[in-house]
């Protein structure tokens, strides 16, 4: 199968004036744009496949996805270099794919199979592939903001030009640990990029019952910039993340990027979203990040309709193949249930895939 989930080879940037609208233009090649579309489509396809498996009874527990939020995890993770590190959350499957995880392992994890990254020890998106430089999330939010800050602390102590990136929803910003993380990262000017996904609701609780002051405005009070972007515009997310990561690498400290978006599915498959006003659903349905980007690639970057269709259908075929692989994965041996509580030694985290052309010299290095 061709595309595994590796990136397409880089090509020279095509930079036209229209591409500079959100500032990302000069940093993205045509191949980068193919990748951005591909990873968003891969997230959508893999989660749709997951929902089907859930309905077929092959996934125990419930099912959680990030439908409508694909631009955020893909656009942000896309800026990272191999040695950067991530803590990825439950609406951010695209970041796993950008970093090199294949959909079969995601689906295997959801089904509790032995070839998922946790080998059945933990479910759904509660995983990180240590070989790809990711420490997986826990259910308590926003705990990973502190873990990412700790990784950034290690980079800073060793004087390395590396970045930690993590995600959280706007719901997490109400918890005290969010304050502890922002404050600690601010005090030490840690090289960390905090990506806040404001998808409108913490489960069923709307923004007006979550905070009196928007979290992005609070960033300044911790001593670092807060940036508000359209979370359904993958290049806008990319550009804000690129600037934030570069700042971090240069010793400029953290950045908080609030991505405004909408969770288009329930908190989990068990949630019918009856609390969401119909007008709100309709408004955001017209702003689907994958459709928006497809239209933009056609209008501004001379992608043909056939080309876009073939990228999306190729991904779908690939995900279908991955689902077969996942279904062939055996259930774990019950004897494994009591294994692995303690470590016998330390295996360092591995490096993630870094598909952005910058890392292979395809785009202007001076710019990034």
């Amino acid at each position, binding site marked *: 199968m061709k595309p595994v989930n590796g990136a397409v080879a880089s090509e020279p940037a095509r930079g036209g004036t229209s591409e500079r609208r959100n500032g990302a233009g000069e940093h993205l090649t045509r191949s980068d744009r193919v990748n951005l579309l591909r990873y968003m489509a891969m997230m959508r396809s893999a989660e749709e496949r997951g929902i089907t498996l859930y309905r077929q009874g092959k996934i125990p527990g419930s099912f959680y996805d990030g439908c409508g939020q694909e631009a955020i995890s893909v656009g942000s993770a896309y800026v990272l270099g191999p040695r950067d*590190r991530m803590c990825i959350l439950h609406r951010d499957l695209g970041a796993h794919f950008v970093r090199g995880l294949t959909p079969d392992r995601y689906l295997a994890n959801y089904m509790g199979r032995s070839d998922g*990254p*946790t080998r059945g*020890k*933990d479910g759904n998106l*509660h*995983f*990180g592939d*240590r070989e790809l430089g990711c*420490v*997986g999330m*826990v*259910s*308590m939010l926003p*705990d*990973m*903001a*502190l*873990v*990412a*800050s*700790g*990784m*950034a*602390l*290690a*980079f800073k*102590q060793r004087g390395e030009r590396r970045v*930690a990136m993590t995600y959280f929803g706007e719901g997490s910003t109400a918890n*005290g*640990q969010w304050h*502890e*993380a922002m*404050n*600690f990262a601010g*005090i030490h000017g840690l090289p960390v990029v905090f990506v806040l996904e404001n998808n409108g609701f913490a489960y069923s609780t709307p923004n007006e019952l979550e905070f009196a002051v928007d979290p992005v405005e609070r960033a300044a009070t911790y001593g670092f910039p807060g940036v508000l972007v359209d979370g359904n515009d993958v290049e806008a997310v990319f550009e804000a993340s690129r600037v934030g990561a570069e700042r971090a690498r240069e010793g400029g400290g953290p950045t908080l990027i609030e991505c405004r978006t909408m969770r288009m599915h329930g908190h989990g498959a068990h949630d019918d979203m009856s609390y969401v006003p119909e007008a709100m659903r309709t408004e955001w349905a017209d702003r689907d990040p994958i459709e928006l980007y497809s239209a933009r690639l056609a209008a501004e970057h001379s992608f043909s309709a056939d080309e876009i269709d073939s990228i999306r259908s190729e991904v779908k075929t690939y995900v279908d193949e991955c689902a077969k692989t996942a279904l062939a994965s055996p259930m774990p041996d019950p004897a494994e249930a009591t294994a*692995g*509580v*303690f*470590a*016998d*030694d*330390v*295996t*360092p*985290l591995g490096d993630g895939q870094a598909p952005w052309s910058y890392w292979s010299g395809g785009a202007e290095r001076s710019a990034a």
Partner: protein
Amino acid sequence: MAEMTYLEAISDALRTEMRRDETVFCMGEDIGAFGGAFKVTDGFLEEFGAERVLDTPLAENAIIGCAVGAAVEGLRPVCEMQFADFIACGFDQLVNVAAKLHYRQGVAAPMVVRLPSGGGFSGGPFHSQNPEAWFLQTPGLKVVAPATADDAKGLLTAAIRDPNPVCYLEHKGLYRYVKGEVPEGEHTVELGRARIAREGEEMTVIAYGSAVHLALDAAEALDESIEVIDLRSLCPLDTEAILASARKTGKVLVAHEATQSCGVGAEVAALVAAEAFEDLDAPVRRLTAADVPIPFSPPLEQAVLPQLEDMKEACDELLKY
């Protein structure tokens, strides 16, 4: 060998490991310029600098959570809780993130949480607790509690080198009260190995931390053949040493300063009952703090925490059984 207090031995272990391994660093509240609330890191700032003797804001989840991140990225953090009681404010990161990381993802988090614990000085309900049972209910955490200066150094060194999160309970009452000969330079005591603190034939006191000294003092005062086992490590627990002594003497008293219900005493008693039942000549007894918060006023605190007279009485009763 050098004579050191328990507290000096803790400092010595930290200093020796920080000199040996540049990935080892300390973080906690007031540990830098002030040298820590109990002066364990006195002089460290001058020797190792502010990055490796990291003064943190008053944010225990930040201390533990950032330690997890630093640990998975190759550092060896040693976190100081100013008082063991304050781990409650960092509990989520400890039990949900650090403890479960290796089981869930195969990611090791080599880190130590130093926990100044114990009462006896009118610290009141929030500066006197012995919270080890909280950790023992959390698979993935190792838990140690030294009673001597030698073990204070050896166990801390071993904890720093261990690839897992280790809760290191240092009893505040022993800081300057206990002195002993301690090996200079590198010194480790294997985690999970108990020690026979006093040999005897008639009964066994199984203890750790401050209760070891109560047991030794009681044995001397009673002048009886009482064996004292110092557990040193609560997880892993040295079940062989416990059972060997129980089988040898046939009478077991488990003693600790922590509260009674579902504590180490309950675990040890259940183990002895299950594995050494036929060797017992008496029921397994416990001497612990009462199941109440630790009160402030001296007569109230003394009524709650096990005292030497309580230990003598408990031993005497068991010897006569």
